[in-house]
């Protein structure tokens, strides 16, 4: 029987990792994701796993590098300023082609910023963050059930493609309690880890894990291999939700918590006779370029709603490629846009002022 429980978002992520077969966690405390570590501090030992509180986010991501390179399923979690610290390690993990799952329960910035929810690390996750040409698969859950589903999926994707997968949640999703239904059992992707450093046991040639290639030809080969892998992922792993986009006067693009607010706005708009569609990217990278491009053929105008100063809107505009106007609405500082604010913006764009 699937188990239905009421849980805090951060704890859902932690429990999902356990159920996905992750037995090694390395992290450092930071609000608003600390409940993940608090939960795993007792849960990991209970299942024979390792919970280690590192001296910094930098150390934590390098422990992930070591443990993943040694063949384990590994998790680290943090929030925005801590994720910035991890970028060095993320770039090395990309170069060394090892799997890692990294959760970012985003808070508002820049700098130490604040502890309230935000989506302002979109650029960092999908455009880079660390140095060099690499990508992270970036998953954007929008409720507790998706925190579970996408965390489990993140481990499979990381193992399948030997790369970093980031869960892009936000402070509100991490802190709110919702019901989640856990499956009895997961069937993790069975990855070939014959490349891992486990000790040769004198039975095979040595394995080594590195990201340094002094010979430019060799380094370009690595880059070409990475880019080919990224094209495969763009081809096969795009996830999004499309809702009421057929015949919509305006299509709103929003992910995570912003998409939840927009869902309510759609009902309010319908009550006023305005048909609003929603395109919700679930993978921020690979971005649902084709879905948005198709929508641009069918609708007159698009609006990107985000908890930031306008980041994903750039990718929406690239997908639309000038064919239709693309507007942006967002709040920063940890302030959530209200349903009324968004509805007003939609009416302003459509020229439907208050009667």
């Amino acid at each position, binding site marked *: 029987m699937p188990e239905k429980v009421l849980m805090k978002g951060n704890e859902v992520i932690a429990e999902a990792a356990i159920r996905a077969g992750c037995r090694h966690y390395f992290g450092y405390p930071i609000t608003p994701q600390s409940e993940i570590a608090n939960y795993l501090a007792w849960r990991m030992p209970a299942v024979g796993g390792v919970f280690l509180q590192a001296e910094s986010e930098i150390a934590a991501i390098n422990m992930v590098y070591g443990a993943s390179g040694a063949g384990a399923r590994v998790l680290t979690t943090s929030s925005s300023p801590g994720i910035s610290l991890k970028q060095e390690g993320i770039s090395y993990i990309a170069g060394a082609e090892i799997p890692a799952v990294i959760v970012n329960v985003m808070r508002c910035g820049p700098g130490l910023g604040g502890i309230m929810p935000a989506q302002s690390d979109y650029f960092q996750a999908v455009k880079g963050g660390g140095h060099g040409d690499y990508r992270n698969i970036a998953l954007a859950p929008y409720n507790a059930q998706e925190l579970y589903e996408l965390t489990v999926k993140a481990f499979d994707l990381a193992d399948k493609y030997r790369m970093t997968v980031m869960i892009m949640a936000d402070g509100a999703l991490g802190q709110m309690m919702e019901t989640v239904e856990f499956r009895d059992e997961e069937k993790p992707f069975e990855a070939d880890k014959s490349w891992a450093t*486990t000790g*040769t046991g004198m039975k095979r040639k040595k394995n080594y894990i590195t990201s340094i290639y002094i010979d430019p030809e060799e380094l370009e080969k690595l880059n070409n291999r990475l880019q080919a892998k990224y094209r495969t992922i763009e081809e096969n792993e795009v996830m999004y939700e499309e809702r009421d986009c057929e015949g919509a006067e305006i299509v709103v693009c929003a992910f995570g918590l912003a998409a939840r607010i927009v869902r309510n706005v759609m009902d309010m708009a319908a009550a006023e006779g305005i048909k609003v569609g929603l395109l919700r990217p679930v993978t921020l990278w690979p971005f649902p370029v084709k879905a948005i491009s198709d929508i641009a053929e069918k609708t007159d105008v698009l609006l990107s709603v985000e908890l930031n100063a306008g980041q994903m809107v750039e990718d929406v505009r690239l997908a639309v490629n000038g064919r239709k106007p693309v507007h942006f609405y967002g709040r920063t500082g940890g302030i959530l846009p209200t349903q009324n604010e968004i509805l007003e913006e939609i009416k302003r764009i459509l020229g439907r002022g208050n009667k």
Partner: protein
Amino acid sequence: MMPVMQSPRSLEKPTMHYCPGCSHGIAHRVVAEVIDELGLEGNTIGVSSVGCSYNNYLYFTFDMQQAAHGRAPAVATGIKRVHPERTVFTYQGDGDLAAIGTAEIIHAAARGEKITTIFINNTTYGMTSGQMAPTTLAGQVTTTSPAGRNTSTQGYPIRMSEVLAQLEGAVFIERVSMHDVNHIIQAKRAIKKAFRVQMAGLGFSMVEVLSTCPTNWGLTPIKAVGWLEKNMMEYYKLGNLKGKDLEV
């Protein structure tokens, strides 16, 4: 006939890239001999760091990971926590361990992480052309202390072995040198004991190796040995700082 001397099994055969008179080659050989003698070749996972020895994973025959600058103790921690039955060591220089990686080495030692660190101290950043290191001696000329290290503005060299010996989790710490045969024999004894401490699961162990860098010191290999004896051994006293009486 029994061979008197042979190349260690744990060492690959290619030509190393190190400069003439550099201590890295000797240190690699000693580590390889110790791993052979302890029967650990198939059981060892090493961690390379950043600096001249960045690619020593090419020189050893066992599994290795290459770590970011200063992070080798964190990487080794990750490996050891996945494979507690394996022997895990880091091989780090003084810029790596005593500057950018101070947090990682101190906390690995404080946790009593059951790993071994081989710490190569040659008082300079060899790979980037001889800049001042945290271990550079007062008055020593480097490319970033061209008038000699001025302690009033550039501070004092850090004695990392003494720093780490303060920590409960660090159970074996010894400083050795590899500038002549007698010292190499002593160094090997210390390195073997450090690995044995790890095998016994007692905690963190480290051997600091005073090393020469003739290229960046601007000396011939022979003169570099004399400089090490006269200057480095004066400030960095050889000997055991912790775990002398451990029986392993």
